[in-house]
């Protein structure tokens, strides 16, 4: 029981980090960014590259990786996404193409075999008789902290209010003197940074190889839709639901069924609540 609680929490935390970033950029800029999984991958690869090729200390490598991915996200938004904003499908397709190009670049640069992202914490912890890897607990802790930080940032700071304003009505925000274009870029950067952080934290215990972007984005997509596009509380709730559903099924039935259960749950949720749990109304 305790095992399910702890491992479910870790899974949910990683999913939440990915989902929150994804829903954030959609909520604010109405961008369905299929390259979100790519930011996750680049975070992990960045940490790997800086530690093993440039021999930087882990903490520095992690920060550097996250910062660079944030910049990359901003560049992608400015150069490729903004001109396509009229059509949601166009944005979807071009971000997908970006994901494919980066995947190939990773194949050609680092090869197909998985790489090693060093862990911050190597020790094992025993909580109530349950063995958990230290890195997993760290991922859980940092995810919660970052999401809480994001929440505070949006609710309490001026920039956060600007973001809220733009998410409700970009034109009106413009009239009020808020540069919505710049806000889009900033939010994309934050979104990318969150995904990259997830990559850095989860890389040590999950797989790091060029195709690692696909599964997270499919899961993030499902979570965000079920939670309600654009709703951060919705994403967190849906992430918890998915994380725990998978863990419970894995423990009680078999790991072969986890995938199908979560997808079936997604489908059922959509059938009964077409706009997701928190719908389109709740922006944040």
């Amino acid at each position, binding site marked *: 029981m305790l095992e399910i609680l702890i491992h479910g929490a870790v899974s949910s935390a990683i999913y939440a980090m990915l989902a929150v970033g994804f829903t954030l950029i959609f909520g604010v800029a109405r961008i369905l960014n299929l390259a979100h999984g790519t930011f996750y991958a680049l975070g992990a690869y960045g940490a790997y590259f800086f530690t093993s090729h440039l021999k930087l200390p882990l903490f520095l490598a992690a920060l550097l990786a996250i910062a660079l991915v944030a910049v990359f996200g901003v560049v992608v938004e400015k150069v490729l996404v903004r001109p396509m904003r009229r059509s*949601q499908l166009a944005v979807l397709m071009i971000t997908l193409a970006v994901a494919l190009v980066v995947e190939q670049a990773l194949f050609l640069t680092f090869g197909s075999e998985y790489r090693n992202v060093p862990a911050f914490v190597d020790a094992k912890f025993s909580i109530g008789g349950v063995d958990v890897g230290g890195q997993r607990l760290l991922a859980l802790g940092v995810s919660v902290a970052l999401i809480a930080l994001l929440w505070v940032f949006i609710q309490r700071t001026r920039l956060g209010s600007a973001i809220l304003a733009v998410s409700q009505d970009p034109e009106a925000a413009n009239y009020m003197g808020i540069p919505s274009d710049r806000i889009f870029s900033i939010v994309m950067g934050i979104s990318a940074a969150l995904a990259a952080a997830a990559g850095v934290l989860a890389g040590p215990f999950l797989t790091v190889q060029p195709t690692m972007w696909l599964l997270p984005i499919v899961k993030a997509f499902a979570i965000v839709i079920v939670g309600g596009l654009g709703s951060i509380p919705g994403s967190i709730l849906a992430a918890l639901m998915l994380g725990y559903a998978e863990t419970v099924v894995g423990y009680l039935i078999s790991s072969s069924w986890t995938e199908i259960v979560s997808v079936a749950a*997604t489908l059922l949720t959509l059938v009964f609540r077409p706009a997701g749990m928190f719908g389109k109304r709740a922006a944040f």
Partner: protein
Amino acid sequence: MFGKRIDYAGALGFIAFMAALPLVFGGNYLIGVLTVSVIYGIWAVSWDFMSGLTGRENFGHSLFIGVGAYTAGFLNTKFGLSGWWSLPASMLVATLFALIIGLPTLRLKGPYFALAMLSGAVIMQRLMLIFWEQTGGEEGINGIEPLIRSQLGFYYFALAALVLVTALLLALARSHWGLILRAIRGDEATCQAAGINVTFYKIASLVISAAFAGAGGALYAHYQLQVSPQLFAVVTSITIITMVYVGGMASIYGPVGGAILLVLLTELLRNFGEWRLMIYSCTLIMILFFLPNGLIAPTWRRVKARLGRPE
């Protein structure tokens, strides 16, 4: 019914070109690539009919393709039925699945609809793997018999099928069907208020789209001589959407060109070895970025405009 004579001329020219290609360049490799591209064309056209016109993007088109292909596989290997039975059977099964997934998802639109359809395809893919004893797991069903033994013969049959499907769907799209479907895309509530049975048209267009996708799946099975769960994959659906995009959404005929172009591109790039997929993806970004309305349909429209003067 089809519009100007120039459209007819263009279509005939295209068909003649496609029919002549293997005769001029020859070789089973080219015929193979062309046949596969033509089948993708059928899938792309069927997608465009529903999703292009109504604007409800279906990210699970691979579901109908897969069930059509597996139906053909089962009928042939387990029951010994020839491919000529598979074609109608696959259309029937695909129709059934369209109803199963289409009815509960009527209310959904946009990314919600996309995800629901995608989930359907993923569930079927998983089921194929879970029930590996019956379906062959990830090795799939092998040893399917070819529909037509001659490589060239099969190609012409597939080409004819593509022409037939495209003509049919073009006719529907230019009729009041197309009008209503486009109206639904614009403002569903008003259509409903105007007394149009929106539900019927939504379901019907999905069923038609699915039936032809399933038929394409059966053709595929009897050509490749095997089916595998990879047919149900997200990648398959996305590839087809890309083809429609490159061809020109909602044009019905554009996706034909999109499909053939992209399949040919993937194969022609083989000479670049490891760089094949990288160049392909970069080309894709270029097309998506610089030609947001697609390549084929807008080009044809421009050609028509230029030729239209003297007529």
